[in-house]
């Protein structure tokens, strides 16, 4: 387990309808303890996982949105969101939750983890990763 691999978690499903979003997030949180290079990708309906303002009280399920916000504390600073997927859903970056990390190379300045990328860039991010975990 000496070599560091580039992990990419690909999220393409809406939250709540199935458990895929929640149980994917649980892998990310556990995986953060391993010394690997981790990135998250949100495309297609996966971008709905980051739409802010969840109130799950009436539905009666746990609101796991705060866990996304906390990913910065787990040293996860690369969250790729596909622009075309947002646009097709009538969404902009303003509709998304804030996700930040502290940049150790820049005097621990707080920066946004979210990087809006084009579909072409997303395809390249997939190609450049060593392993892809699909949920």
């Amino acid at each position, binding site marked *: 387990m000496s070599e560091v691999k580039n992990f990419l978690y690909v999220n393409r499903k809406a939250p*709540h*309808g*199935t*458990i895929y979003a929640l149980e994917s997030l649980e892998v990310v949180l556990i995986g953060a303890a391993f010394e690997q290079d981790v990135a998250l990708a949100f495309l297609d309906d996966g971008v709905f996982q980051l739409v802010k303002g969840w109130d799950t009280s009436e*539905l*009666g*399920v*746990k609101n796991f949105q705060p866990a996304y916000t906390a990913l910065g504390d787990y040293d996860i600073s690369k969250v790729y969101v596909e622009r075309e997927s947002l646009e097709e859903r009538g969404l902009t970056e303003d509709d998304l939750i804030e996700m930040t990390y502290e940049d150790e190379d820049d005097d621990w300045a707080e920066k946004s983890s979210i990087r809006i990328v084009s579909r072409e860039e997303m395809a390249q991010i997939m190609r450049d990763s060593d392993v892809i975990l699909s949920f």
Partner: protein
Amino acid sequence: MKLGICVLEGPYQHEASDTAYNFAVAALEKGHEIFRIFFYHDGVNNATRLMVPPQDDRHIQQRWSELAEKHDLDLVVCVAAAQRRGILDEDEMKRHGKDANNIAPGFRISGLGQLIEAEIECDRVVFFGD
């Protein structure tokens, strides 16, 4: 009105089981009778008493069992679907020579005829699935 409910998906994996539960609660609050809730396909997995969800999350089996006790509901698990997926009561356990069973209080195992009967007896039957 006399209502029936059919649940086709398992707990936690799919929202169908939550929607069905919330629908049932609302129907009872409105004074309707729930003739039967029928668990089919992976819906049978709602009936295992072995589940241990995280403390800060809902306990899907327990809330079904509690609702059944409070309102004297008939929660029926399809025997054929249950056998495939490993949901057994004591009778089924013995009949198939298994060493354990896992059905929760308030649920009973029976045949698909119970779903047909619900369709005949009820004014409405609502399906929740994938």
